[in-house]
């Protein structure tokens, strides 16, 4: 278990999240993919703190955790709003600004 192994795992998880972000149509499924990507980034912060020394990486990871939770709250509020206005949560239906 070296730092490069953890970085490889985080990259793979991030790319899985990118794949989900690009293929999913439901807004909530997109939020799940974004969570996956944020989690991979957190993993890098903590691995850096553990392998390079210093506590700043963990402080950063805690801040990023809190911000991700805030993002989920706002994201879900937007999903509920989308459902109320379109009776569906598929993101490609919300294209009013294109017209």
């Amino acid at each position, binding site marked *: *278990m*070296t730092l*490069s*192994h*953890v*970085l*490889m*795992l985080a*990259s*793979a998880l*991030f*790319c*899985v*999240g*990118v*794949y*989900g972000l*690009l*293929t*999913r*149509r*439901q807004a*909530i499924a997109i*939020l*799940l993919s974004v*969570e*996956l990507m944020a989690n991979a980034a*957190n993993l890098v912060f*903590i*691995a850096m*703190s*553990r392998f390079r020394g210093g*506590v*700043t990486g*963990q*402080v950063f*990871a*805690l*801040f990023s*955790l*809190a911000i*991700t*939770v*805030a993002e*989920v*709250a*706002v994201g*879900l*509020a*937007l999903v*509920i*709003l*989308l*459902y109320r*206005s*379109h*009776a*569906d949560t598929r993101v490609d239906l919300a294209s*009013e*600004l294109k017209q």
Partner: protein
Amino acid sequence: MMKSIAFGAIAAVMLATGLMVVSSKNLVRAALWLGAMLLGTAVLYAIMDASFLASVQVLLYVGGVITLMIFGVMITRKHEGLEVPAETMRPSRAMAVSALLFLALAAAVDKTEGLEQELLPAPPTTADLGRAFLVEHVLAFEVLSVLLLGTIVGAIVLARRRDLGAAVGLFPATPPMPTGSVAPTDEEPGSKVAA
């Protein structure tokens, strides 16, 4: 040695559950797979001696975010029962994009010098973390609490307004207006001609 074996097992579990999150046909199942993935991450944090972050991960993510997500899935659906089908689109192109991104990241990790080091002997303790949080980074900590408050108020305001889309004039109000009705104008019928 023990840690390497545990890391390998946890990495395999995290990748498998992550793939299930993006490929599951049922949104409720996808959210539950994400919960499993986040639990695996918490175990990995514990392996890397970040015990406080591991417990926060379980409390906040597995306890809070997954519950919220499942509530969100349940609220925004039309069908009865647990089946909430998830649609996907253009998987081949997305697969190419993410595979290319992974190759680029892996090449960057491979080319960088000095990443082959093993674990440091002394991990930072929770006491160190608390001191860093409340002494060095206390301003950022307070700003973060204001951000959280603002987010909660904003989320409530967004989700409460039943006619926000109509209020800002972007979306038709729910239920949609009948097509025959025209919005009343305060112009006189002949004012355009006079101007």
